[in-house]
């Protein structure tokens, strides 16, 4: 079996990454020797993904488009054990954060990453960040085309791009190749959606100016249909317009969403098209050979024919209610009959969302080798995905995940909570996120109840920067600090589903930390009391509005 069925680093990539490791090693040496001040060193360490948080340095490791091999995951486990506290946190940007890295160990950790073609470049700074993609990429039944091919092309173009290393602000690109948007493309600086037009051609809808944070906005369509081979030239034109006109006078108004909002999407489009007219025939046109070469690296793994109906699976479904629930919530249709996509829930009851120990990472890697062609994905919802699992192997995968504590049948349910690290770790946070998520998770831990409640996305951020995506949670929870007290602002109705993307609306006054669970319980009770057949929480909210929820919550807390 080849190591991966996705992009392999070539000598250019390896040289680039290893040179950066050695440069950083020397920069760290000079800093520790006092030859560099913190002011001089800080941008250098951030360029290499090393942040200083409350208690320690944090290393943010890029997982390009959320795709990992089992070998890479084992290396992450090894690095976490050797240089950190033996666990890591998978983030909403499909990255992995190690929270306890020592500065003097950071170059060795980066060198270890480079051994498996990984790095921490462009996980900080005002540059184009790690490109994210649909976590079911390459496997989903509804996929038009594998978005990772294009994410890799964008990665190559954007890595250390000299013109876009000092943008007005950071820049995030997400790509989906399916009509069901699992990459939240409308809330990124640029979202790219592959779709097929009436002529049968596949191209991109280019969406610009979305984002969360202090000023949440839903992206607007810049180009309805962009031929695929024009992608880089068009992105270059868009980034140039942003680089030229994006605000640098105010940190909070520097993202492209503010530029699009201020000038309007029509003016933005005109500027981009004018720039594009000058650049479209340049070097960035993608030849068929280039596209084919990258596409070839993402060739689907050879999946032998397997039966779609397996007696053992059907029997276990009838005998084991938890397994039946797991099949329903944690597996998804694969493009090939006889296979399923399996999500390992990193949200066991009461656990910090998205955290995995070194042993768990190694266990997941073993499962990937045994049952999923050695491939994994990281979801922006902080779970791990086995993209290619034969239906007949599902009981074995379920059992193996159960031994790791990752078989909770809660994907998409109320305890599949997204939470940022919050004030327990983060230097920017105002309030804690993880303990709030833990309390909600414990309160709703009973699986049958979760499945009765149905699909419900709770997203928690510990500050307005919105790393926990609270704006697009069906229930969003934002931690704020008011005179030294943690309060939590609740919003309802956020969504990232394609065609329904919406920002949540604040319900009312923030509640204290000890009332958050009661407030969520009141919201759920209101929904259960009023839902119509087939309605999810967010559907009921859309139908009846905020008032009934509001009345119940504030009568309770």
């Amino acid at each position, binding site marked *: 079996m080849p190591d991966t069925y996705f992009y392999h680093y070539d000598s250019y990539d390896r040289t680039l990454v290893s040179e950066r490791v050695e440069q950083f090693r020397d920069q760290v040496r000079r*800093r*520790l020797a*006092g030859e560099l001040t*913190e002011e001089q060193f800080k941008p250098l360490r951030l360029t290499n993904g090393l942040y*200083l*948080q*409350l*208690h*320690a*340095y944090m290393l943010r490791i890029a997982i390009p488009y959320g795709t990992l091999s089992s070998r890479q995951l084992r290396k992450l486990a090894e690095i*976490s*054990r050797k240089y950190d*506290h*033996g*666990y890591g946190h998978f983030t909403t940007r499909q990255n992995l954060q190690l929270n306890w*890295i*020592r*500065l*003097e160990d950071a170059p060795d950790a980066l060198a270890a990453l480079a051994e498996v073609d990984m790095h921490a470049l462009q996980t900080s700074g005002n540059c184009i960040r790690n490109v994210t993609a649909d976590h079911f990429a390459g496997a989903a039944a509804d996929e038009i085309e594998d978005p990772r091919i294009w994410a890799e092309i964008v990665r190559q173009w954007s890595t250390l791009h000299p013109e876009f290393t000092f943008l007005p602000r950071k820049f995030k690109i997400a790509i989906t190749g399916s009509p069901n948007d699992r990459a939240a493309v409308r809330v990124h600086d640029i979202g790219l959606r592959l779709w097929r037009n009436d002529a049968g051609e596949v191209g991109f809808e280019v969406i610009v100016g979305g984002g969360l944070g202090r000023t949440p906005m839903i992206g607007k369509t810049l180009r309805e249909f962009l031929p695929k081979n024009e992608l880089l030239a068009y992105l270059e034109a868009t980034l140039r317009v942003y680089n030229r006109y994006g605000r640098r006078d105010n940190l909070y108004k520097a993202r492209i969403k503010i530029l699009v909002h201020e000038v309007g999407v029509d003016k933005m489009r005109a500027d981009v098209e004018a720039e594009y007219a000058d650049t479209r025939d340049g070097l960035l046109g993608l030849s068929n050979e280039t596209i084919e070469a990258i596409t070839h690296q993402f060739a689907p793994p050879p999946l032998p024919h397997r039966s779609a109906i397996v007696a053992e699976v059907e029997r276990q479904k009838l005998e084991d209610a938890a397994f039946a629930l797991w099949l329903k919530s944690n597996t998804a249709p694969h493009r090939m009959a006889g296979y399923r996509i399996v999500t390992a829930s990193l949200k*066991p009851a*009461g*656990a*910090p969302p998205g*955290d*995995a*120990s*070194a*042993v*768990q990472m190694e*266990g997941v890697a073993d499962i990937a080798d045994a049952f999923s062609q050695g491939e994994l994905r990281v979801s922006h919802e902080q779970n791990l995905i086995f993209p290619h699992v034969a239906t007949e192997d599902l009981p074995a995968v379920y059992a193996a995940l159960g*031994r*790791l*504590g990752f078989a909770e049948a809660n994907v998409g349910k109320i305890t599949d909570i997204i939470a940022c690290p919050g*004030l*327990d*770790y983060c230097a920017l946070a105002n309030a*804690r996120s*993880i*303990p709030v998520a*833990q309390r909600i998770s414990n309160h709703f831990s009973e699986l049958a109840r979760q499945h009765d409640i149905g699909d419900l996305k709770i997203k928690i951020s510990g500050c307005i920067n919105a790393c926990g995506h609270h704006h697009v949670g069906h229930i969003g929870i934002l931690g704020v*600090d008011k005179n*030294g007290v*943690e309060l939590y602002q609740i919003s309802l109705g956020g969504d990232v589903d394609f065609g329904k993307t919406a920002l949540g609306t604040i319900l009312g006054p923030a509640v204290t930390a000890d009332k958050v669970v009661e407030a969520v319980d009141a919201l759920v009770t209101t929904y259960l009391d009023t839902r119509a057949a087939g309605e999810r929480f967010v559907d009921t909210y859309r139908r009846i509005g905020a008032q009934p929820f509001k009345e119940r919550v504030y009568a309770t807390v």
Partner: protein
Amino acid sequence: MAKNLSGDLQVASANRLSDGVVVWLDDAGEWTTRLDRAAIARDGRAGEILLQRGRTEAFSVIDPFLVAVTEEEDGSIEPLSLREKIRASGLTFDAIAADAVRYA
């Protein structure tokens, strides 16, 4: 009961350069990981002096700053803000252990 909640009491804190660990400046001008050994400035002027001293001893730490604390009858001190309490005491939940397969 707290002896002094005025917010006038301050200690100097920073993160250690080599590993980012939270440290406080003690009476001897050394950076210590023990909050109970931190030098206490009892008014604004003393705070300025303490911070200045911290900055001159900043070779091994990053960006010293003042932290408002309270002092108990027994002399123990605690930061006033939640953020600084967490910096001083660590995570408010149990992180999963490296060899764990279950979150405890």
